């Protein structure tokens, strides 16, 4: 388990979190990148669709029911581990949208070009910000949605602002 050494999750460790292809094609869906048993369960409490469960109790892994998840994004800002992302592959053959929690300032604005980063902070390439959600309901964890080439849909997990 490389992540125990402080490394990013590997494709294998992530495999169980990746929604099936048919589900991905149907619309935005959450990807819960929480693979370690920690005492935590707000994701279960806040999902309005009841799509996240935690069989076995507080210290077990969250399990997402892809069929129930409607991609609303509530869990992205409500997860204290900032471990939930939204992936949307309905933007045409080559594009994807990734929504991620972003607690840094200055917050980018819609239309900005930003650098997409992978789980290790490596630069993937410049991408467009297509939506920025903030407000009281999100409690200081804004959600930034970026449009990325489809091949980065499962890789882009952070951004760095570029000079305007």
């Amino acid at each position, binding site marked *: 388990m490389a992540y125990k050494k402080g490394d990013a999750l590997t494709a294998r460790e992530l495999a169980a979190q990746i929604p099936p292809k048919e589900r991905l094609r149907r619309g935005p869906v959450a990807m819960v990148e929480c693979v370690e048993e920690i*005492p935590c*369960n*707000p994701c279960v*409490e*806040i999902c309005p669709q009841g799509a996240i469960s935690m069989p076995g109790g*507080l210290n077990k892994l969250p399990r997402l029911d892809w069929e129930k998840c409607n991609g609303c994004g509530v869990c992205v800002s409500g997860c*204290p581990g*900032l471990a939930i992302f939204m992936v949307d592959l309905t933007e045409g053959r080559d594009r994807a949208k990734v929504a991620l929690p972003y607690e*840094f300032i200055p917050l980018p604005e819609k239309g900005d070009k930003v650098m997409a980063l992978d789980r290790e902070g490596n630069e993937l390439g410049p991408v467009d910000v297509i939506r920025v959600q903030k407000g009281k309901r999100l409690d200081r964890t804004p959600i930034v949605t970026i449009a990325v080439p489809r091949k980065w849909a499962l890789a882009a997990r952070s951004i760095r602002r570029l000079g305007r």
Partner: protein
Amino acid sequence: MAEIRLTEHPILQFKRGRKISFTFNGKKLDGHEGETVAAALHAAGVTTYRRSPQLHRPRGFFCAIGKCSSCLMTVDGVPNVRICITPLREGMKVCSPKGKGQLPEDDPATIWTWPGQYVDKILETEVAIIGAGPAGLSAAVETTRMGAETVVFDENDGIGGQLIKQTHMFFGSKEQHAKVRGIDIVPLLLEQIDDSRAQIMLEATAIGLYADKTLGVVRRQELFGLRAQKIIMASGASENMLAFEHCDLPGVYGAGAVQTLMNVYGLIPGRRVLMVGAGNIGLIVSYQLLQAGVEVVEVIEAAPYIGGYHVHAAKIRRAGVPIHTCHTITKASGQEKVEGAVVAQVDSHWQPIPNTQRELAVDVICLAVGLSPTAELLFQAGCQSCYIPELGGHVAVHDENLETTVKGIYVAGDASGIEEASTAMLEGRLAGLCAAESLGKKAISERKEEILSQLKELRTGPFGEKARKGKEMMRQEACRYGL
């Protein structure tokens, strides 16, 4: 170059008080009302306060929460004042002590009257709670709810303890305020304290605790006694030091100090930080540094694995911060303050491996290498102690109700053994309930069962193993003492 004072922050808003002036060794400086002397000095760029008495090494703050005595200065003529918890006041004269700091006159008669006063009175209360952090406030919620007259005191000039620095959302479940940021939990706790029965005394330090449950308390320059029928010690913990070459240089700061500067006073600790320790505190403070716009050069951890949650590590990794396990710090460089650090790989015996040294240009070395319970007063009062590494070292022997070997003295939160703030709040409530119950207040069995089951749940799972083991050893110790 970025300012030391933050004006914007993604989570916090800093409301600074009016500008006031003070002097440091005769030099006029400005600070703000509401900040500590140490915060004002840091903002003014002063990192060296004084010289060590023997080797004349530079000394600044280390823990910034009143626990280590690294910041002792002479303030308005009073020697050995911990300026990291002393609020700045207009016109204050802050001076480096000569040697160990001297009382102004040798006449013992004047010592007791100068410059403050000894109040020849002993206040009385049903419950006295030492510390207004997560455990202490939670204890007061229960004692006041059950109708016990309660005095809570804290040596800081605000309540909340370390909660007021926790900008991240808490884990756990709804009952433990999961998803709520630590900073927002303080008002929630305060709301639940029945203030008709509680008195909160700030800037009040407990300096003595005696077996008859009388406390010596110093509040500003006033010394008085407080006799309580029940005492709850919720005094928290102190930051551990790590020994390496020049580890005493200013710029080597505890993680709690960095959080205090950054999240309470809105001051960046430096520009480039080496984080030592990848437990939850090291990982969380690294993330908070990034949020304050400070570069975290890398996080090192001597163990082969990180001690904190992967989700915390992932947040800083995707922001580009490397984490190196099997690494330690061997040296800090710099004359007056930290200018760099040398890190090296360690072997399975924790020894640095030759030729693996790397030099890093950093101006802050942040130590997040664990905490030790603050329990000295309990030992003074005659509470039996034991050494349990899983709980952070020397702790007071206590039973399941958190009562020590001295009847009527309870311990809760990090002072009873190092854990998380969520468990500290539950322990505080438990100690509060039990203390009030033993005063003859109405029975409580249901709430107590509820708290015990929540504690048990939080300590289940792989990350609860250490606490489980520690508490089991404590149970055996308690049996030995017939608790």
